[in-house]
């Protein structure tokens, strides 16, 4: 009749089909889960100092101080693994029509950590343009 290998193969194929069916259903449902995050970003201070930088030479570095109040707790549902939160400076210059520079980022892994309230946050990464001045 059917040997062991054929039975194992049938079970395996069925298990794979069910698994991908469940994964597909999860993928379809997840974008529709409700969430209402809110965030307030206030720039308190910006200082610009020029330093010698890589091959660009003397370039302007911006040091920003930010107040952040973000309530991201509603983004945590049963299917949330982690939140990657970042503050991005987006601006336009004469030579470059889109510039995006990440100033600060943080990984949030649980609902308890999801309400971020920091004053006097300094930018984590160099805020410098690809040209020598902003």
């Amino acid at each position, binding site marked *: 009749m059917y040997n062991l290998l054929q039975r194992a193969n049938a079970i395996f194929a069925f298990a794979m089909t069910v698994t991908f069916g469940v994964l597909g259903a999860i*993928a379809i449902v997840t974008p529709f889960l409700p969430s209402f995050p809110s965030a307030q970003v206030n720039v308190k201070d910006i200082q610009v100092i020029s330093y010698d930088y890589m091959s660009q030479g003397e370039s302007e570095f911006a040091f920003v101080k930010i107040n952040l109040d973000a309530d991201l707790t509603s983004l945590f549902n049963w299917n949330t693994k982690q939140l*990657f939160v970042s503050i991005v400076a987006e601006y336009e210059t004469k030579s470059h029509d889109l*510039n995006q520079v990440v100033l600060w980022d943080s*990984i949030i892994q649980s609902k308890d950590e999801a309400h971020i309230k920091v004053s006097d946050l300094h930018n984590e990464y160099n805020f410098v343009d690809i040209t020598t001045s902003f």
Partner: protein
Amino acid sequence: MVWKGLALYTNSESPIVVVLSGSMEPAFYRGDLLFLAMPDEPVRVGDICVFKIPGRDVPIVHRVIKLHDERKTGTQYILTKGDNNQVDDRGLYNPGQQWIHQEDIVGKVKGFLPYVGMITIIMNDYPQLKYALIGFLGLYMLINRE
């Protein structure tokens, strides 16, 4: 056949890759399987991209942290960094290279399966296991009557 079809559908050379390092923890661990696609939409900060440094084979999966689009030429100057790394990827780029461009990016991460790729890593770390498996399969084919 299915592989080539998948490569065409996702518009990416290798649509499924295994995570080899821990540089993107806690999002991706060593041994996770990643599903890639190369959609038409442009690269933006925050995207997790797979890129190849020109001259090197191994693809790297990191996040874009800086982006400068040059107006005249349309060239994008991209800087990446692994979430779990302290510094950006300039140490990984070629000597003297400070940015990567759209051409270096082969895909964006669209989905993942944890642990499944561990088999590839174990096979690479212990090649005796690979040979043992091939030997066992060969022996089985010889012995089996059907």
